[in-house]
């Protein structure tokens, strides 16, 4: 049964991965002939301060995104979980960003945040007329905000589904025992959402390694101002397709794979996800 899946994974997952690792040991400008470089690309990437800055930015985007998105998504999920016509309407509005492509979102926000002609030009909103994407201090946080705007609906959807799965008998029993809404949330909702949270967090953390298109568009393809938003995937793209150094770009790509793999293993291990014990023991 698993053979076709393995074959596909091997063809589209492993073969390119091996290709990247091989290419990371080569010297190739994408045009001429491929030459052997040994570990030169790796030592260049690992000793370059720009790589570590990009990695640091990636981690920063990842952690802050998680801290911002999780509570908002949870709150929205809780709000949407009970059925009701008004909530359904809200839900449709919330999910709008999910339907747009990252490029459309990037261009829209870039136009909205333009200090001269964007929302900052509206009377009464002049306090918004700041170089949000142009200031080296603010740009990264602006990017994180736009990322959250794009992805919170998806995670809210996960939480909504998770909450709807919780058996109502648990709440009824707790109410009989005199537990208030706060206690019910802390003692029932949160523990029951544990695996939803693990799933959502893993998607968020690993997914943040691929935030490329949005940042690319928002920063005009440069990771600017300066290098304030040049995360690792963007740095890989610029090295490979603007500076035409495929070898070094492959080394950065391999670094990303290692980082993502480690992260994914770490989240599942720490959360006990692999044990998969039942949440509904004793029911």
């Amino acid at each position, binding site marked *: 049964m698993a053979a076709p899946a393995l074959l596909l994974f091997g063809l589209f997952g492993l073969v390119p991965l091996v290709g990247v690792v091989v290419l990371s040991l080569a010297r190739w400008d994408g045009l001429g002939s491929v030459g052997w470089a040994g570990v030169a690309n790796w030592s260049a990437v690992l000793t370059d301060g720009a790589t570590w800055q990009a990695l640091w930015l990636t981690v920063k985007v990842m952690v802050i995104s998680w801290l911002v998105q999780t509570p908002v998504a949870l709150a929205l999920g809780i709000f949407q979980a009970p059925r009701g016509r008004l909530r359904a309407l809200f839900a449709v509005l919330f999910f709008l960003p999910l339907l747009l492509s990252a490029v459309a979102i990037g261009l829209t926000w870039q136009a909205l945040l333009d200090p001269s002609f964007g929302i900052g030009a509206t009377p009464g909103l002049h306090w918004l007329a700041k170089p*949000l994407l142009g200031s080296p201090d603010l740009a990264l946080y602006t990017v994180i905000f736009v990322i959250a705007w794009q992805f919170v609906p998806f995670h809210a959807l996960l939480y909504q589904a998770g909450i709807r799965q919780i058996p109502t008998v648990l709440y009824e029993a707790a109410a009989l025992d005199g537990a208030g809404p706060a206690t019910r949330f802390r003692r029932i909702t949160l523990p029951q959402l544990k695996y939803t949270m693990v799933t959502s967090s893993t998607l968020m953390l690993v997914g943040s390694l691929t935030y490329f298109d949005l940042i690319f568009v928002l920063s005009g393809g*440069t990771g600017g101002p300066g290098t304030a938003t040049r995360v690792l995937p963007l740095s890989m793209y610029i090295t490979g397709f603007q500076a*035409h150094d495929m070898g070094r770009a492959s080394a950065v790509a391999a670094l990303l794979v290692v980082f993502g793999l480690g992260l994914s293993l770490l989240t599942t291990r720490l959360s006990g996800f692999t044990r998969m014990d039942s949440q509904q023991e004793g029911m």
Partner: protein
Amino acid sequence: MWALNDQTILKESVDAYNKDHPDEKITLRLFANDDYKQKLRVAFGANQAPDIFFSWGGGALNDYVKAGKVDTLRASDLKADRFTPSVMQSATFGGKVYGVPANGLAPVVLYYNKKVLADAGVEPPKTYADLLAAVKKLKAKDVVPMSLAANSKWPTLMYLEYLLDRQGGSDVFTKIASGDASAWKDPSVTQANQYLQDLSKAGAFGDNASSVSYDQGASAALLYTGKAAMEVMGTWEYANIAKAAPDFLAKGDLGYTAFPTLPGGAGKADSIVGNPSNFLSLNSGTKNKSAALTYFNDYVLNDSQVDAYLAAGSVPPVNGLESKLATVKSSSDKAWLTFVYGLVQNAPSFQLSWDQALPSDQADPLLTNTDKSFLRQISPAEFGTNMSKATS
């Protein structure tokens, strides 16, 4: 043949060729700007490249030449003497020509909003000192003195190009472009960055320049809406403004002049920087060489092409245009075309934009360091040190 999306006049030349040669037609494929460079590169890497391709000349084209992908064009193949010599320099490597110019000249000039300058009692600046004085007066009037799309980085580079050319003369960058990394440490490079940072410190670009992206036309919009007084940009901006704000042009509010001089600098006051032209080059692996040469020779920038470019407000890099210019009907277009033609004809040097002149692996460090210098994240001297390190 591959080219960029917006080359409608170039497309007409292909159509004309195809009409005359139905048995050996050219298929034209057009691409968006950002994709194009990568697509071409990948196509050449995979030996799937077109017979004729469009490029910016300079270091990027030289990459292909060095990889043996481009055919030499003999002077007799091209009737090369019809083109402006300073423009041909961008497609000439090691004394051999690798491209034929295929559209208008695009030097960088200083545009200004006549009304805004008049309201502030400012004359169009002729020297750097004038410029600083103008900045002060314009700031007091609450307009942005110079509109700059710094988010896109390359517009900022235009300032550095001019400041270095005025300060150190055209030789400094010529040395850099020839591969001499130590030339980045020339004192005039530091001085040019100092001037740029001084301008920025004086508030010449307002508070928001770094958020302005060129692609959405915001920097031109600032100029024609009167929110900004001046803009340094390539000549293509004239057509953009004519399209976006025809009223502004019709009222005669758009002014333009050469970039201010630096008294005391070693450079010549009438030297220019920018993009001499785009070029068409021949894939060395082509099987259709003679057809391509016929096209280059008889259809690219021929008489009707030249007329079409002039009608679009763009000056093609062809010698002896005076008589044609005299017949242009619209007076605002005529003044503009004559200005650009004169600027280029009188220029002792026409420096190709740095990001195009340098090999492509240096373009990113260049743009990043330019941006950092503009943001004053690095000192004027660090710009040269960083660049010299990135180049060697």
